[in-house]
């Protein structure tokens, strides 16, 4: 019994420790988008096509996350009809910036083009 308690305790602490290593992007973005038809990469390319530069893209995306509206959304009408516009983010500016930096670095085309 004692062994079981110790095992569960160790497993729990490992899982808790793994959970603690998730970054802001992984914690706050991936969980919801995982179940949506438009992947985060597709969304990134859509934002890139619309806003071009790093600062413009991050600025526009941050503004949208803080104050999402149908007019500002880049998703098509069908998507909004099915999933509606997302809720306003509860993340702090600092947290949002970190998530956006990670998002940008993950899909930045400069690093991928050959």
């Amino acid at each position, binding site marked *: 019994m004692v062994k079981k308690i110790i095992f569960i305790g160790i497993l729990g602490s490992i899982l808790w420790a793994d959970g603690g290593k998730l970054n802001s992007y992984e914690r706050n973005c991936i969980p919801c988008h995982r179940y949506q038809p438009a992947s985060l*990469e*597709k969304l990134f*390319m859509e934002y*890139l*096509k*619309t*806003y*071009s*530069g*790093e*600062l*413009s*893209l991050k600025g526009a995306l941050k503004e949208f996350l803080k104050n999402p509206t149908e007019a500002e959304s880049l998703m098509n009408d069908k998507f909004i009809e099915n999933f509606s516009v997302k809720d306003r983010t509860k993340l702090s500016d600092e947290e949002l910036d970190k998530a956006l930096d990670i998002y940008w670095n993950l899909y930045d*085309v*400069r690093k*991928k*083009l*050959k």
Partner: protein
Amino acid sequence: MLVSKNKGTNLLRSSEKSSLLRFLALYFILVTMILLLLGVFYYESQEKLMFSNQRTVLSNYANKQVKALKHLHNDFSHHNIYPRSTKFRSAIYDIEGKKIFSTIKHPEVIFDKEIYRIGDSLQFVKYLDDYYLGAKYLFIEVDEDMTWYKETMSNILAFGTLTLIVLIIFGFFFVRIFLRPMRNSIMLLDDFIKDTTHELNTPISAILANIEMMDTSIMAEKNQKKLARINIAAKTVSHLYQDLTYLTLSHNRESKDEWIDMKRLIQDRVEYFAILAGAKKITFELDLKDSAIFIDSIKIARVLDNLISNAIKYNRRRGKIFIVLRKNYLHVQDTGIGIASEKVSDVFERYTRFNSSEGGFGIGLNIVKSIIDEYDLQISVESVLDVGTTIRIDFLRGTLDG
């Protein structure tokens, strides 16, 4: 010493020649500047034409590249090879001016110029409406075809040179037309002198010969003075006649050079002019050493006569004339009115006179200079206003120890 004739009758005075040269130089500079300006305009128009042609070609390349970028953008999760072409190089930049990807040779792109030359290449920029791969600016680069440049430059050089030559020929004729009235007046004067000279010889010779033959010992003193005045007047006219004859006729005769004893010649000419000098109470002071020069006797006589004649003419009453002869030089100095320093350089100009109250045509020193130049001698003039004038001749060549 044989001396070639290089002093044909040239009606244009040196000042007129310099005016002609200055006008031609100014005309040449102006015409060259205008042609250069036209060349620049032509070059720029050809360059614009080339850019216009290239813009169409590069625009087509850009459109193809946009299509390729669009395809790559939409399929980026499966395919990430940047589209390349053998016909051109390209680069994409985002809205913030940061490079996304580039295959161009010259990375110093210009965002606000549609087409431009950079190094040996041409670059064309297209602004994208949809920022595929984040690209706001698409640069297309090709190596510049320099055929147009070579053709343009050879056209400019060929037509420019041809036009310049034609315009210079026109300019030369224009100048001749402008100077014709001046030339005509000088020709008229020269013709008049030439015609008059022919008519002077016989009466002057007759007057001088008869004066020489007169027995003055039996004349009354009053008549002797009158005869002396006639002699002076006749010699003055004779001197003028000699100058005019030299000027109008002697150029047609060949020089007969021989060794001339300068000391003896000077003494002879001083004696000839003694009566003229005596009329103004002018005295000669001679300091003569032996010297000889290989020259035409008539020409050296014209030189001496004119120097002495001027020294008498422009001297003050009771003045002096110093004549110094050495092996290599001769100088004649008077105590006369002198010449203003700014006019000294004009003394050898034909028809230049410094005192209108004195007679003459102002041709004496012009004759002296022409003879001096013909024999490669050196002449220099020093003059101080109201003090006197010194003329020095250096015998650099053709001298013999006396």
